[in-house]
């Protein structure tokens, strides 16, 4: 019997070998192409050497423009154009929508050295991949896509995010528009209770308390909260309670995790006693019951469901999430008389106020070293350049005449378009999933993406007016914090920082000078001082600190 088992074991091993042999491998042909098409080392010249167009297969992983929409259909017209005109057989994969899931997918692919040719990646993960040599420098690709380089990769701050040891290891496309999220208040609730919009933190607490306990919606039920938020923090630049609470820290002059005012002052804002005072203020809000009690476990979607139902009186929200037609509709239906207005961030006890931090972000696309080794660099540059030029409108808005039209001023219009085929309908969203690879926030884009609309009671809702309102408020510049590299124990460090802040705010820990000092000691025992020293030098080198 043991012999028979041995034989079957051998059979099973043979089967396993056959199965594993079925995995993808590089073909000899691909290697030959790589040798023939690899860009010459001296390609960085004033007059780029024309590279002969060679057929290529490209796999790209991107984050779709609309997370809940699917990928473009197989008969997407762009696939054929890219095949015919660029000689590229494109395989497109949409990454999961959450940052953690994206990192997981990319890191597991990286561990098996099977990263795609071009992929969207967070800055922290890019840093890790650069350290292990899986991501290629892209400096040599830039001359191959002059228009895109001019429109997408000419911002020194963004380029600094992807520059390591003097080389660019990623393509930093324009990220979010800065200053998109700000404080808004229910004007109809203020009117109903005869209150004025708050200008100081004390006013803020008074109004939030009235919104919570004085039945501002008049339905006779205790179903409203003065302030709504959720924990929106991740990474070294957003640890702790996250951006939704930044206006409170801003009122104490310590918005954000890092103090980037000057090289002398640089460090964790938590070392500033005012940071503890701001945390105490938030704790007092929790104790007073003016915050939605579910806030520590709410997801972004839950948070938004709450204000759409009419539970929230004050919040920090994204202008598009608040006012775009598709998002506003549910709120409008539940609260026909509801009216959100922008308010300035409240002024704190020392006369400070700030809406939050400006961290100029980038949507980073990395090129795998494997793709460069296989000679796919020119094809990647060709594809990206096409997207920024001939393919721009197709990527951003679909087919002209089918999904959109242009008016006499060159702006996007839906006149003459079948409503079911309009570029911004849910059904057509898969056609513009790559739009984030081409958007550069021109007037045409902004007008098209954030169109005004009319509420049920006839008011005009203008998303861009909210954006303009937020932009007028005081903000704290902190772009440099995005280039602070994670330490080896990043998970423990960020957990310790965030967990303690949440515990202070929720009353799970006493909050006084003694416990705060213990908190800072804990941070130091996890290497905070070393992290600050390294980060300071990096920021000085990158020109973010002086």
């Amino acid at each position, binding site marked *: 019997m043991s012999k028979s088992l041995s034989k079957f074991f051998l059979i099973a091993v043979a089967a*396993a070998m056959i199965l594993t042999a079925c995995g993808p491998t590089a073909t000899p042909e691909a290697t030959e192409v790589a040798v023939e098409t690899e860009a010459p080392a001296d390609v960085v010249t004033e007059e780029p050497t024309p590279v002969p167009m060679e057929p290529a297969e490209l796999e790209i992983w991107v984050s779709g423009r609309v997370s809940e929409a699917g990928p473009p259909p197989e008969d997407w017209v762009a696939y054929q154009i890219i095949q015919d005109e660029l000689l590229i057989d494109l395989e497109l994969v949409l990454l999961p929508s959450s940052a953690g899931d994206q990192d997981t997918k990319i890191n597991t692919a990286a561990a098996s050295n099977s990263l795609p040719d071009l992929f969207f990646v967070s800055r922290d993960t890019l840093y890790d991949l650069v350290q292990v*040599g899986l991501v290629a420098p892209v400096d040599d690709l830039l001359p191959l896509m002059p228009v895109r380089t001019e429109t997408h990769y000419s911002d020194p701050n963004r380029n600094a995010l992807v520059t390591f040891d003097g080389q660019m290891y990623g393509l930093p496309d324009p990220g979010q528009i800065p200053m998109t999220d700000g404080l808004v208040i229910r004007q109809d609730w203020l009117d109903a209770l005869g209150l004025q919009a708050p200008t100081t933190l004390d006013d803020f607490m008074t109004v939030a308390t009235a919104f919570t306990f004085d039945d501002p919606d008049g339905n006779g039920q205790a179903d409203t909260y003065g302030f709504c938020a959720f924990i929106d923090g991740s990474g070294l630049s957003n640890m702790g309670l996250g951006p939704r609470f930044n206006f409170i820290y801003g009122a104490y002059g310590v918005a954000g995790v890092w103090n980037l005012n000057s090289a002398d002052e640089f460090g964790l804002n938590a070392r500033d006693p005012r940071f503890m005072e701001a945390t105490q203020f938030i704790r007092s809000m929790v104790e007073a019951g003016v915050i939605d009690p579910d806030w520590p476990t709410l997801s972004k979607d839950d948070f938004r469901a709450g204000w759409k139902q009419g539970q929230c009186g004050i919040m920090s929200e994204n202008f598009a999430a608040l006012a775009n037609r598709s998002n506003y509709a549910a709120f409008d239906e539940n609260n026909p008389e509801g009216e959100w207005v922008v308010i300035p961030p409240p002024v704190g006890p020392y006369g400070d106020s700030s809406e939050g931090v400006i961290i100029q972000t980038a949507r980073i696309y990395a090129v795998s070293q494997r793709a460069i080794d296989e000679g796919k660099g020119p094809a990647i540059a060709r594809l990206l350049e096409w997207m920024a030029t001939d393919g721009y409108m197709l990527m951003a808005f679909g087919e002209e005449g089918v999904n959109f039209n242009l008016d006499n001023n060159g702006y996007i219009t839906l006149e003459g378009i079948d409503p079911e085929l309009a570029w911004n309908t849910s059904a057509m969203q898969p056609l513009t999933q790559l739009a984030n690879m081409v958007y550069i926030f021109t007037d045409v884009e902004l007008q098209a993406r954030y169109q005004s609309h009319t509420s049920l009671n006839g008011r005009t809702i203008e998303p861009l007016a909210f954006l303009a309102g937020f932009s007028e408020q005081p903000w704290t510049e902190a772009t440099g914090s995005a280039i602070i590299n994670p330490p*080896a124990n990043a998970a*423990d460090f960020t957990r*310790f920082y965030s967990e303690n802040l949440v515990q202070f705010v929720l009353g799970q820990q006493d909050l006084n000078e003694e416990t705060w000092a213990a908190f800072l000691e804990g941070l130091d025992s996890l290497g905070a001082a070393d992290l600050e020293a390294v980060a300071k030098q990096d920021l000085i080198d990158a020109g973010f600190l002086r």
Partner: protein
Amino acid sequence: MDTSPTSPPASAAARWKSFGSRERENLRKSLRKYRWLYIMLIPPLAYFVVFQYVPLWNAQIAFKDFRPLLGVWGSPFTGFDHFITFFHSYYFSELISNTLIFSFLKLFVGIPLAVILALALYETMFLRFRTIVQTIAYLPHFLSWVIMFGVLLMLLSPGEGLINAVIKANGGRPIAFLTSPEWFRFVVVASDIWKETGWSTIIYLAALMAIDPTLYEAAAVDGASRFHRIWYISLPGILPVVAVITMLRLGHILNAGFNQIFILYSLPVYSVGDIIDTWVYRQGILEFQFSLATAVGLFKGVIGLILVVVSNRLARRIGGAGLY
């Protein structure tokens, strides 16, 4: 030369040849007779080889600074550095204690409840009732933890939850079950029991069905009450199965249920909810430290192996039978 079957062969080689030939013939017959069973065996064997044994090769990265470009073999050797990093990590003791607390609670609360439910179902005389209860009890097993989290939120949320609505209606203060360190472990264990106890009863019910019914008949004739029959026949009858299940679960004692806790935990309850696997996810996977993640996995495996071996010896010494 005498070649009769009863005569000894002339030499060892001839004896071996004769023996081998007979064995080969027996093997052929056996293969022919049980060919379909052997064919059915191939896919699971292939599964184990491909997905359980071949990956063992990669476990060596626990002792290396894994560099994907250099491959598993070519990555530089670092010895026990990653193990030491884990043992010296800031939250090591907390991770170990949280993991063990969850595992032991689930084990020693979950198994008795499943046994009790199985006994109750087995003893009921109303078959229709048993079927309904079984179906309802199994149902949560098929729900993912994401859906279970939604259900728990609807029940336990301090703002909108049903249970808190009852508490508030009775003049009490709402309880933050999911974000309170005092309540979080209870929620995790209770929700796990809710989800899995029904499913766990299947094996105990099968064990109960395998008990010789004449034992019950004889006991009834002798005047044994229902409780006595359970105590002296049913429980001893399924005890070996309970022992085996417990031993198997001990092998996974450092797996406290990643999916469940990853979905349920949040910053306010990290101190009582963060387990080894959630830490490995954050530090190993998200921070691209696969060698560290593998080292922790290996550590868990070794601990599990030791526990299985020790508990098996104990089971054999105490009960006379073990897992192997």
